[in-house]
């Protein structure tokens, strides 16, 4: 299996160049590479025709050390042998494909619907549900534990706070959680299906609202896909502005997360300060493009808004006091013993579990997994060695908070540098139409972790399949494991420390 096609982040390659392996070869290749330190970035099925046509399985593996992406495919089939027992990173991808195309993955240990939608071709359903009707959300058998004094607590889908809907089912022994099952799908909008046949004029707006708190992250990934398929590079100026936008998004969300963590443990000063500071960072994005969440800011081929020197100076001036207050609020948070007592040792995920589940982003780095798209697959946006390794080993709530603290500190310095000198170049050069019969992969380190978009085009250069993998896709399983043998009263804190997206998962 030498001569495998290798692409870089944001690259594209013709479908004909992707090797089609037999199931056994596919499994062996994945097993070897994923054990040797590569990570499964995406896995998607592309039907070879209408209706119940066989599916070609594509897998994208990221080799961080080399900065490469490997793309392999499996011969078209209608029934698959599950890889999950050997390679757990596949578990959600297989359930996703099974639900989309009504196929079976034989031997999958936990084969259940994921988002509760009818199969796309409209034919067979993997669980024998009526394909003509929309399934009820949460319609599945939950894992249960039986025994004296074991009780079940169901939380959601409607929660007490103003947050997104999701259903959590705890199997408890007194206050101790034996198992947590998370059932999502309440916000499934079928976004990736809307993109198929595109790119459409409305696609950018749909991408930006896919996960509203990661508008810039998702839009950057979509833009990179189109730039890869059009084989254009963005100018240094556009790259610099994209980096500024991404770091502002990271700061706003991380600082907001600190506020939420402080609120959960009942520590008021940091809670109220961070709530205000988050608004200050959002306002900076608002200054840049008129939208506090960065809508309309990133566009394929560059940026939708320029940053003139006067505005850069204004942002720099605003950043000074905000950065000082942020550092102050975090210092107070991490210097208060009662806060640390609450965070330390709570919601621990072992490094081994994190590796097998393929946890990414903040949650992954808090378990000692060194993965950062900005560092290892930097693309055009970041300079070499610009991003340090920011990891923690603890795997608990404290480790996730500390990773965030490191990132906040780094982003503040980074913004300061980038706002001082902004490279020259064209702001926006619309990319040419996408190349036909190709596959493009784009990864962007959003604030939660890597946002991955994979596009497959048809013979006229329209999207045949579009897959979005939000970091939440991997990390929800991590939250479920973090709760094992924990106190049920610590769930909200663990949940906040992950702060995952419901809509980014549901799509």
């Amino acid at each position, binding site marked *: 299996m030498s001569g495998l096609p290798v692409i870089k982040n944001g690259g594209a390659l013709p479908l004909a160049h992707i090797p089609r392996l037999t199931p056994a070869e596919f499994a062996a290749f994945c097993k070897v590479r994923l054990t040797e330190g590569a990570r499964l970035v995406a896995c998607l099925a592309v039907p070879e025709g209408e209706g119940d046509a066989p599916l070609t399985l594509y897998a994208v593996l990221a080799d961080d050390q080399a900065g490469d992406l490997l793309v392999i495919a499996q011969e078209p089939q209608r029934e698959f042998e599950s890889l999950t027992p050997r390679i757990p990173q596949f578990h959600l991808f297989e359930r996703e494909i099974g639900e989309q195309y009504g196929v079976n993955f034989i031997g999958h240990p936990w084969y259940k619907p994921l988002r509760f939608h009818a199969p796309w071709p409209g034919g067979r359903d993997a669980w024998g549900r009526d394909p003509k009707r929309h399934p009820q959300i949460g319609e599945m058998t939950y894992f249960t534990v039986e025994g004296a004094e074991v009780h079940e*607590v169901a939380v959601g889908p409607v929660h007490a706070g103003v947050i997104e809907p999701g259903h959590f089912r705890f199997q408890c022994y007194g*206050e101790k959680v034996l198992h947590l099952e998370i059932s999502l799908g309440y916000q499934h909008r079928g976004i990736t299906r809307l993109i198929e046949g595109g790119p459409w004029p409305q696609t950018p707006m749909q991408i930006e609202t896919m996960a509203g708190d990661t508008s810039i992250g998702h839009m950057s990934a979509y833009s990179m896909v189109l730039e890869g398929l059009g084989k254009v590079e963005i100018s240094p100026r556009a790259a610099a502005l994209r980096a500024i936008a991404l770091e502002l998004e990271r700061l706003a969300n991380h600082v907001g997360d600190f506020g939420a963590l402080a609120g959960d443990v009942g520590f008021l*000063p940091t809670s109220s300060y961070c709530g205000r500071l988050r608004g200050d960072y959002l306002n900076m994005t608002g200054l840049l493009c008129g939208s506090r969440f960065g809508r309309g800011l990133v566009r394929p081929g560059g940026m939708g808004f320029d940053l003139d020197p006067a505005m850069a100076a204004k942002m720099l001036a605003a950043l000074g006091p905000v950065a000082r207050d942020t550092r102050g609020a975090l210092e107070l948070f991490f210097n208060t013993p009662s806060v640390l007592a609450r965070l330390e040792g709570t919601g621990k995920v072992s490094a081994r579990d994190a590796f097998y589940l393929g946890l990414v982003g903040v949650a992954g780095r808090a378990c000692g997994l060194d993965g950062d798209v900005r560092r290892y697959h930097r693309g055009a946006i970041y300079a070499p060695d610009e991003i340090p390794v920011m990891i923690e080993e603890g795997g608990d709530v404290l480790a996730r908070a500390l990773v965030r603290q490191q990132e906040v500190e780094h982003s503040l310095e980074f913004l300061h540098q980038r706002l001082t000198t902004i490279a020259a170049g064209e702001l926006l050069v619309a990319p040419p139409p996408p190349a036909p019969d190709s596959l493009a992969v784009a990864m962007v380190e959003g604030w939660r972790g890597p946002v991955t978009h994979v596009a497959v085009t048809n013979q006229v250069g329209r999207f045949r399949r579009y897959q979005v993998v939000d970091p939440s896709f991997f990390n929800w399983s991590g939250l479920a494991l973090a709760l094992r043998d924990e106190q049920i009263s610590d769930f909200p804190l663990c949940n906040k420390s992950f702060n995952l997206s419901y809509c980014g998962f549901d799509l």
Partner: protein
Amino acid sequence: MLGSLFMHLLVVLTLSPLLAGIIARVKAKVGGRQGQPLLQLYWDLAKLFRKRMVISSTTTWLFRAGPVVGIAVPLLASLLLPFGPLAAPLSFSGDLILFVYLMGLARFFTILAALDTGSSFEGMGSAREATFSILVEPTIFVIFIVLARLSGDFSLNGMFVPVKAGFNTPAGIAMSLAILCLFIVMLAENCRIPFDDPNTHLELTMIHEVMVLDHSGPDLGLILYGAAMKLLLFAALIANLLRPATGNLLLDTGAFLVLLLLLAVLVGLVESAMARLRMIRVPQLLIGTSLLSFFALILLLR
């Protein structure tokens, strides 16, 4: 007798919502926020009493009894307690036991009302409330024994006399420990940080709040009012020990009321300065407090 009854009810009924307002205001100020008006709870109560109620069809009369007992008990208990120089309208030897178990009665009915809803959240909250209150009870009793021994009186009215002894005598040290223990008991019994967070919206972390989630309208008003009165009673226990005794009725009453408000400020400051405990740590702190109260007793028996 009638005069002091009137005065007691007046203090409890009018002053109690103010304490909650002061705590909220102090927390807001320390957190850098403007905060709600000091009299917010009065307005909230007025609003709630004008509302209608939503009552689950699965509940029985127990659900309605909870709030009623919740407000009747603090009113009754207040009659056993002196408010500074204002002697208790009702007093007999051993009334301290009645005081503690009146509180227990209110808790019993709150728990029954919570269990009556059949909600898994409320069941969890009830279990926590019952567990933690068992751990608070020894502290209260031992402190009452300490105070009874110091004063030689077995009624609340006679027990709470400000001690004149210096703080370097065993009596003074025992008294200081008693005040500290009572303050911790006040935080625990009134669901304040670090034991519980009265402001949280997270059902899974709640102790007391989760038990009253299903109550609405006037019933919720009764519960909030009752909780405010309970806070005032526990603050009064402490203020009785700290107040100066000049002999001037007006001056002493004023000092006592100011002390109540200062205690509310102190609660606000404690809540601002620290995070909540992990729930598994709560029993440890409560048992530690019990030990402190035993030390106070040992100092006196030595």
